[in-house]
């Protein structure tokens, strides 16, 4: 298959898995947690690199997931010590990120990892490292990893669909029903970290946040039903990946940056014209008395 097709497929996989995970980030009001985790996985990747001396998908995944869980755990601990929640987020992620940057600049020595690459991603290099799979043939490594991660994400979301729903909308009810809220919280953070690490190569640390939050927020403006929101958000993710690629080739600029820009455009359009929560429809119809919740 051709070079640019692989890039589009990889970008769409990023859009799809981030879009799906992002729905729960929005509903659980943990959008900034994605920002924090996307920064701290850098530390996990650096440590995995130092331990194995090579950049392999599996080691990176494990390192990134451990760093993500560590972030969630530290934030939880600080919050339980009565530090403001967003302050504890800010303290934890900047500190872990700082440690990551220091490790990169001292010991890893800029060979394969550098901060700029990690932050911006380099999707154009993805088709060059391939792996041979049975039946399909040569597939870029990052694409294969993303496909596996997407399947894992979809599996966990379907397997615990009801639990996710209840814990996202009514944590107190979930706890009273005996659903392990804390366990689900950490499972969710693991999924966020896995998605982030897998998308890292393609879009980089900060722009993965755009793919995680923005399509889901746009979908949140269109629907009140969880399943519709999941589908829409995944769709918006894929759409912004394709539009982003198109903008990037037209302007000859960064693909990941354009993808983030495309998510922003989609959100802004939704913000203006969505039938229920858009600005225009609010102007046209007088506000309804009560706002329904997603069911």
């Amino acid at each position: 298959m051709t070079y640019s097709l692989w890039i589009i497929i990889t970008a769409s996989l990023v859009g799809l898995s981030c879009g799906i995970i992002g729905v729960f980030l929005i509903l659980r009001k943990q959008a900034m947690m994605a920002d924090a985790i996307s920064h701290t996985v850098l530390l996990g990747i650096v440590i995995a690199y130092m331990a194995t001396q090579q950049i392999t998908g599996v080691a990176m995944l494990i390192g990134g997931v451990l760093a993500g869980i560590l972030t969630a755990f530290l934030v939880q601990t600080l919050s339980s010590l009565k530090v403001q929640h967003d302050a504890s987020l800010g303290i934890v992620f900047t500190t872990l990120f700082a440690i990551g940057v220091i490790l990169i600049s001292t010991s890893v020595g800029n060979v394969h990892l550098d901060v700029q690459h990690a932050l911006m991603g380099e999707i154009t290099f993805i088709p060059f490292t391939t792996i041979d799979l049975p039946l399909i043939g040569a597939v870029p490594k990052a694409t294969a990893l993303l496909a596996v991660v997407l399947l894992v994400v979809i599996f966990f979301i379907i397997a615990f669909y009801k639990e996710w729903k209840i814990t996202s909308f009514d944590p107190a009810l979930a706890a009273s029903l005996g659903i392990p809220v804390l366990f689900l919280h950490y499972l969710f953070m693991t999924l966020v970290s896995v998605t982030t690490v897998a998308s890292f190569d393609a879009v980089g640390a900060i722009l993965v946040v755009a793919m995680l939050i923005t399509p889901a927020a746009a979908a949140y403006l269109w629907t009140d039903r969880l399943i519709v929101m999941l589908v829409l958000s995944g769709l918006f993710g894929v759409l912004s990946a394709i539009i982003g690629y198109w903008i990037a080739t037209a302007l000859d600029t960064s693909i990941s940056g354009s993808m983030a820009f495309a998510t922003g455009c989609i959100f802004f359009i939704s913000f203006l014209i969505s039938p229920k929560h858009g600005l225009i429809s609010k102007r046209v119809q007088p506000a309804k008395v009560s706002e329904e919740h997603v069911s």
Partner: protein
Amino acid sequence: MWSTLLQSNTLWVLSSTMLLGIVAGAIGCLAYWKRQNLMSDALSHAALPGVVVAFLIIQEKNLLLLVIGAAVSALLGAFLIQWITNASRITEDAAMGMTLSVFYGVGVMLLSIANRSAGGNQSGLNSFIYGQAAAMVRSDVITMMVLAAIVLFIILIAFKEWKLFLFDASFAKGIGMSVRGMNILYTIILVTTIVIGLQAVGVILMAAMLIIPAVSARYWTHSFRNMILLASFTGGIAGGLGTLISAAGSGLPTGPFIVLVSSTIFVVSLLFGKEKGIVIRFIQFKIQQRSSYVKKSLTADKGGAQ
């Protein structure tokens, strides 16, 4: 180490990072009580496209103009966050996450255009974005100092008003203060602080300069005035120490070391802080436990005697 310290450029860098720590500590206290700790993170990312656009227009690295560009786009980001939060059912943290990542994406887009068109000239731009205190020169430091002095002056001159604005906004409104105006002024000085700090510590770690000293200071005092003084003090110490550590080795980044010093101070405060520090709370708990135990055993003795 002393020989590097005595180089004049290191002195300039040292004074600017200390100053930055002081100003950021003070503003951080305002942000802490407005419960907008992560706003600084969002706005520092949102500044990126403005920096690049300013650079594309003037084609050279002039700190003051880059700062103005950064401030314009960060203010635009702040406005968008406000607008999205107020006008739709998107929560503030989602609005912040979107703004920071989309603005950053646009910045990255523009940056690769700038890198292509400006040839070798963009090296100064990259250090501006990722934070390289060592790359600062005297004129940069002077610009920083002037802006920082203005910010500090605004905080000091209206100290009473700030206090009212933060702790009792409805009373402030009642006595005829313009809360809206204060909000705008607060956003402006927050953005100014963020953009002057970008070059020293970079887009990502700027948030730490604002958040960590304020939270640490909270463990030592209940008074708002002392909190600001303490946060400025620890911010300045962190800035200075971090710069010294990174100057001692070769090729060590400045921003991350400042953050590490800052978070070390935070951990110490969390453990030993006078107000609600973990150790202090533990000791108080033990004392209380013992006194109640003594009381209990006393009443038990009395009961036995009767």
